């Protein structure tokens, strides 16, 4: 079972107990997926449905969403749908928002706690910069993350129930979806290729055995000083206005949109086109977005509100959809922020567009189509995907994009649309609490892995980092153990960082984590095993036990 789904089931069981409702578990997959549904029955589901048919084979997110949505319709009477935050294979988090769009339900993603009432559900959801308290009515779709509860292990009574209770199979003949709209035929994206990710180790791979930690700090300082002030090379480019189909970019206030716009510029250069933006911002910040000429934006549609942070994804999607239909861009580009990872799937379903989420690279192929590259199978492979839809839509992880542009030759034309005039911002109950976001801007960051052995050791390293003005981050394993908060997680299911020097302590080198830090200028590893995976990613590997490192820093 997908670990995130266990959190969803646990929360569902709690809500069911509160209201004496009925809980059904649904899984789309081959016959072997029955095992997962048996687990769901053991954990508290009353019924379990396996949605399985040869016709569904090869389904992308859109086709999968269609099948799941039709299944929910068939079962009927659904007030609340709970999903795990993401799957373990593609980790795109698209399904919850997509299903909500299909069935015209409210959606809240990344829920960390919720309180169900008779006619509504109050959710606390993690946003990019803190938390949002959102109340929505039923029916609703929630995706939950691993902060929401501690899942139970099946009881003996649950195990006995699961042995007796049959899993109900639903096939396409039950759903009645035309076969031309099922599986691969019904998919709006195609995978061009999947290939192994090999670590392009332009790294020195110097092994330091029997070296003490004085040498470590010499290495850190030398590379830190050499990197100095990061001077990003800026490429100047002159755009001219033309009538080719634009690239449309969504800009989210409080997010650093610079890198996303730079990526849009690089695509616009290749496609010989212009950039049009859709911006959501608070009224007081309008002037920051009216002139984006140097970022190549020829037109900016600025939605403003006194309470911009209250505008839900569904609201902005309903505003963007007619705009996209009118402007007919060739590409609609979003960033991989929490907000936009919910927004893009909603738009994609409503407009029937093939969405590829969380791309780390976007290229233009020989046919002028957008080739979208993303990690799959927990980072072990890359997939090259393209949309079959005329308008290509994608979310791009701009944090790792390194190029900088300065555009000349165009002037931004801005149109400001006041959402408060239509009372849009007051339609949904939403409060936001900002929390101090984890600072990954340090030039030296220490990464803490499970090899450090304990929460106490994590705290020792954190104390040392604070003293030295280094940053810290953690692997997913450390976060899952409860040793450090989720906000410190780096990797494909966390943040991406690129400090001057990254020091990996007790980190094995699993690709899911290394994807998040491989852009660092210099990587130094501390690991007792010189043959561990981390050695491939390092410029320097100190073959030492983490305990010895921790002892050394405590004495400093």
């Amino acid at each position, binding site marked *: 079972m997908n670990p995130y789904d266990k959190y969803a089931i646990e929360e569902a069981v709690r809500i069911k107990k509160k209201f004496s409702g009925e809980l059904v578990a649904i899984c789309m997959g081959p016959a072997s997926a029955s095992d997962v549904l048996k687990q769901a029955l053991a954990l508290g589901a009353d019924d379990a449905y396996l949605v399985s048919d040869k016709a569904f084979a090869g389904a992308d997110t859109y086709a999968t969403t269609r099948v799941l949505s039709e299944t929910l319709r068939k079962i009927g009477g659904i007030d609340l749908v709970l999903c795990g935050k993401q799957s373990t294979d593609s980790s795109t988090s698209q399904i919850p928002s997509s299903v909500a769009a299909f069935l015209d339900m409210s959606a809240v993603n990344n829920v960390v706690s919720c309180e169900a009432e008779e006619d509504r559900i109050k959710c606390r959801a993690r946003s990019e910069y803190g938390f949002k308290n959102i109340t929505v009515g039923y029916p609703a779709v929630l995706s939950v993350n691993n902060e929401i509860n*501690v899942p139970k292990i099946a009881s*003996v009574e649950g195990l006995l129930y699961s042995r007796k209770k049959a899993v109900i199979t639903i096939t396409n003949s039950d759903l009645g979806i035309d076969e031309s709209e099922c599986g691969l035929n019904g998919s709006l994206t195609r995978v061009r290729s999947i290939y192994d990710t090999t670590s392009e180790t332009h790294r020195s791979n110097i092994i330091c055995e029997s070296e003490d930690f004085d040498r470590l700090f010499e290495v850190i300082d030398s590379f830190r000083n050499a990197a100095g002030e990061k001077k990003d090379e800026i490429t100047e480019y002159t755009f001219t206005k033309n009538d080719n189909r634009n690239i449309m970019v969504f800009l989210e206030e409080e997010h650093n949109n610079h890198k996303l716009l730079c990526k849009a510029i690089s695509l616009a250069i290749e496609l010989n086109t212009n950039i049009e933006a859709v911006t959501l911002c608070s009224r007081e910040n309008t002037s920051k977005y009216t002139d984006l000429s140097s970022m190549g934006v020829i037109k900016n549609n600025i939605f403003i509100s006194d309470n911009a942070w209250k505008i839900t994804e569904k609201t902005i999607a309903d505003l963007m959809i007619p705009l996209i239909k009118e402007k007919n861009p060739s590409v609609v580009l979003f960033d991989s922020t929490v907000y936009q990872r919910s927004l893009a799937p909603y738009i994609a379903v409503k407009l029937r567009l093939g969405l590829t989420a969380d791309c780390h690279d976007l290229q233009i192929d020989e046919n002028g189509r957008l080739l979208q590259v993303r990690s799959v199978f927990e980072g072990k492979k890359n997939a090259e995907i393209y949309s079959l839809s005329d308008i290509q839509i994608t979310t791009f992880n701009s944090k790792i994009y390194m190029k900088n542009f300065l555009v000349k030759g165009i002037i931004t034309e801005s149109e400001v649309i006041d959402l408060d005039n239509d009372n849009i911002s007051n339609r949904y109950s939403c409060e936001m609490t900002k929390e101090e976001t984890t600072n990954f801007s340090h030039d030296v960051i220490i990464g803490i892995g499970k090899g450090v052995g304990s929460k106490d050791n994590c705290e020792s390293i954190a104390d040392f980092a604070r003293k030295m003005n280094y940053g810290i981050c953690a692997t997913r394993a450390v976060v899952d153990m409860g040793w450090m908060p989720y906000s410190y997680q780096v990797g494909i299911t966390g943040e991406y960082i690129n400090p001057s020097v990254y020091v990996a302590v007790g980190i094995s080198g699993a690709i899911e984590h290394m994807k998040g830090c491989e852009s660092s200028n210099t990587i130094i590893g501390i690991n007792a095993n010189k043959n561990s995976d981390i050695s491939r990613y390092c410029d320097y590997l100190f073959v030492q036990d983490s305990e010895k490192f921790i002892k050394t820093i405590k004495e400093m």
Partner: protein
Amino acid sequence: MNGVNKVKEIIEKNLFMSLATSDKEGNVWSCPMTFTYDDDYNFYFFSLLDSDHIQNIAENPFVSFSIYSTDQTVADMDGVQGRGVVGQVDDDELEKVHLLFFSRTMPNPEMRAKFAPPVCLFRSEDFPQMRFFKMSVTELYKKDTDIPIHRRKTIDINELRTAK
């Protein structure tokens, strides 16, 4: 004494069992466990959710166990062994199991009041999470003391439950 009475005696006399678990791939693990039991000879113990044996049980609830005294002589040696299925105790049974467990392992009420972890700790979501587990016995055996070679004999669980 017939087998059932001897099994009762062994279970009653001992506070620890050896619990064997395995994950789905068949990687095995064994650990000593303080236990208690109810009138139906369901066994209860508590552990941390992130412990190896509980992680195994989460994947594979089928376990085996043995209970024996280490202060017996080789000549008199006897013990109980068996198989069971383990699950987490539901919240609505927690108080009952908590009392059952600590009444047996800390029979002195003053000691219990002072040292037994409170019930709320067994529902707390703060790390590390401790939980109670129930083992429902599916097979039960004891050493067959009627024959000179070391074999076991099956004990009828229902007989165990109803015997006085």
